[in-house]
């Protein structure tokens, strides 16, 4: 049976097409237009890559903050549920999921069966999200894709005490003025986000194994900073951004 999951996020829209236990195709587009339009484009691209027709899709489930804007979805499910489902399928031993996307961060605890037991999250402010990292990368004039690696090559660690992205940006600028090396500032930035996520994990009670999903999981510096803070290994799939869409496609398959 062929099903699709679509994750309409604040920054990017992801589609994943699943046939039984095989991923046929994925697509990812920037959410820069109206939700329904981006959803259709992303879906068209994934269908083309999978060499199937739209009619062959037996079920489509949407998720993400814009999940209700997807006209062709049969059902919509919360990101929390989809990330839990997708992570459990990829990593059956996963009990804790850290999902850091562009504009939100979440900590989810699941049981052996992949059902959600507890949850904490922030989507009210940029602290601890991808946008926070993006703002700091811009202040440092470093491409976002490079900040993780650069943060690992640090000698000291600059202190970033503000949670607020706006105030942290001023702190970064004043560190630059003081001549603190870029790598040390980046290490401090990653540590401050790790602290924030650590606080969220404490609220729900962390259990091993820990999986990280969302676009920020592609940042190796972030994963290492969290591993250091939590004292445990963090599992990341090769396509962490697609986990929400994967979970949606799995839910679509199971509810048919």
């Amino acid at each position, binding site marked *: 049976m062929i099903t699709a999951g679509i994750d309409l996020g604040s920054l990017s829209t992801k589609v994943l097409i699943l046939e039984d236990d095989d991923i046929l195709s994925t697509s990812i587009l920037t959410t820069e237009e109206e939700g329904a339009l981006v959803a259709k484009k992303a879906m068209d691209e994934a269908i083309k890559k999978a060499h199937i027709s739209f009619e062959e899709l037996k079920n489509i489930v949407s998720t993400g903050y814009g999940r209700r804007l997807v006209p062709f979805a049969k059902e919509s499910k919360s990101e929390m549920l989809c990330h839990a489902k997708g992570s459990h399928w990829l990593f059956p031993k996963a009990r804790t999921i850290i999902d850091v996307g562009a*504009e939100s961060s979440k900590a989810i605890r699941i049981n052996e069966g992949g059902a959600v037991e507890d949850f904490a999250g922030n989507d*009210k*402010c*940029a602290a601890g999200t991808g*946008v*926070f990292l993006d*703002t700091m990368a811009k202040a440092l004039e470093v491409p976002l894709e490079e900040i993780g690696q650069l943060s690992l090559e640090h000698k000291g660690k600059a202190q970033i005490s*503000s*949670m*607020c*992205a*706006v*105030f942290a940006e001023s702190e970064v600028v*004043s560190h630059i*003025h003081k001549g603190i090396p870029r790598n040390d500032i980046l290490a401090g930035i990653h540590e401050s986000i790790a602290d924030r996520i650590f606080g969220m994990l404490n609220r729900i009670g962390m259990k091993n194994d820990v999986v990280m999903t969302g676009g920020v999981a592609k940042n190796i510096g972030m994963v290492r900073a969290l591993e250091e803070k939590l004292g445990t290994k963090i599992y990341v799939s090769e396509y962490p951004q697609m986990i929400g869409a994967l979970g949606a496609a799995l839910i679509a398959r199971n509810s048919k």
Partner: protein
Amino acid sequence: MYYLGIDIGSLTCDAVLIDDSEKILASSVVPTGARNREAITRAADEVLRSACISEKEVTATVSTGYGRKRVEGRLTAVTEITCHARGIKALLPGTRLLIDIGGQDSKAIELDENGQVVDFAMNDKCAAGTGRFLEAMARALQVDIEVMSELDNGARGDLTISSMCTVFAESEVVSLIAEGLKVNEIVHGLNRSIASRTLSLIKRIIPDIAGFPIAMSGGVARNSGVVRAISNAMKSKVVIPPMPDTIGALGAALIARERYSHN
């Protein structure tokens, strides 16, 4: 005898010089910039020069603000809350609630009949509801921060900015522009958002503000749109003292005079 008050804030450094009769002789506002000490010297020099008084003639100096410990030769350093309360008591006696919105923080200070601090609430953890919020929005709207103050003149509508967070609100504003909303309607919405944030700060210390004489200080008090939005949200008149940015420095100068004569 002359007394100097210096308020070193995150964005500006303000100085006020008074004489023995508590008369304000001069005041100054200079950007704090990256070097606190230079800003302190500049702000002090400016008031001394315009009052034609030499540094040696200053009897006592009191500092306040987040950089208050950086002021050399001070009699003492006093918190912003105390200095703001003292300053507003001199200019607008009878004020029972002082709202102070500066560059990076916002405060609500409750005062008793004698102008003494009863309670206060403060936000300095996040840029929401501060001058920095307005600055970021002015940038997103590509208007001058000074011009922004006049932009909601006559604007109506109940456009709501749903994001509290400055970073998210900035993207919200950009999409509102893309949707074709008028700049003055957006500014109106932003002012209302600051007002609702301020109101929740006040509610933490005063559940019912009916009948409270209210004043506002800090740089944002010069923004008439924000002041109007706050008045509307509280259904009360908000009085703005002359030179609202220098209330903290004025309070510091008054305290300098009091403490010096006590010693």
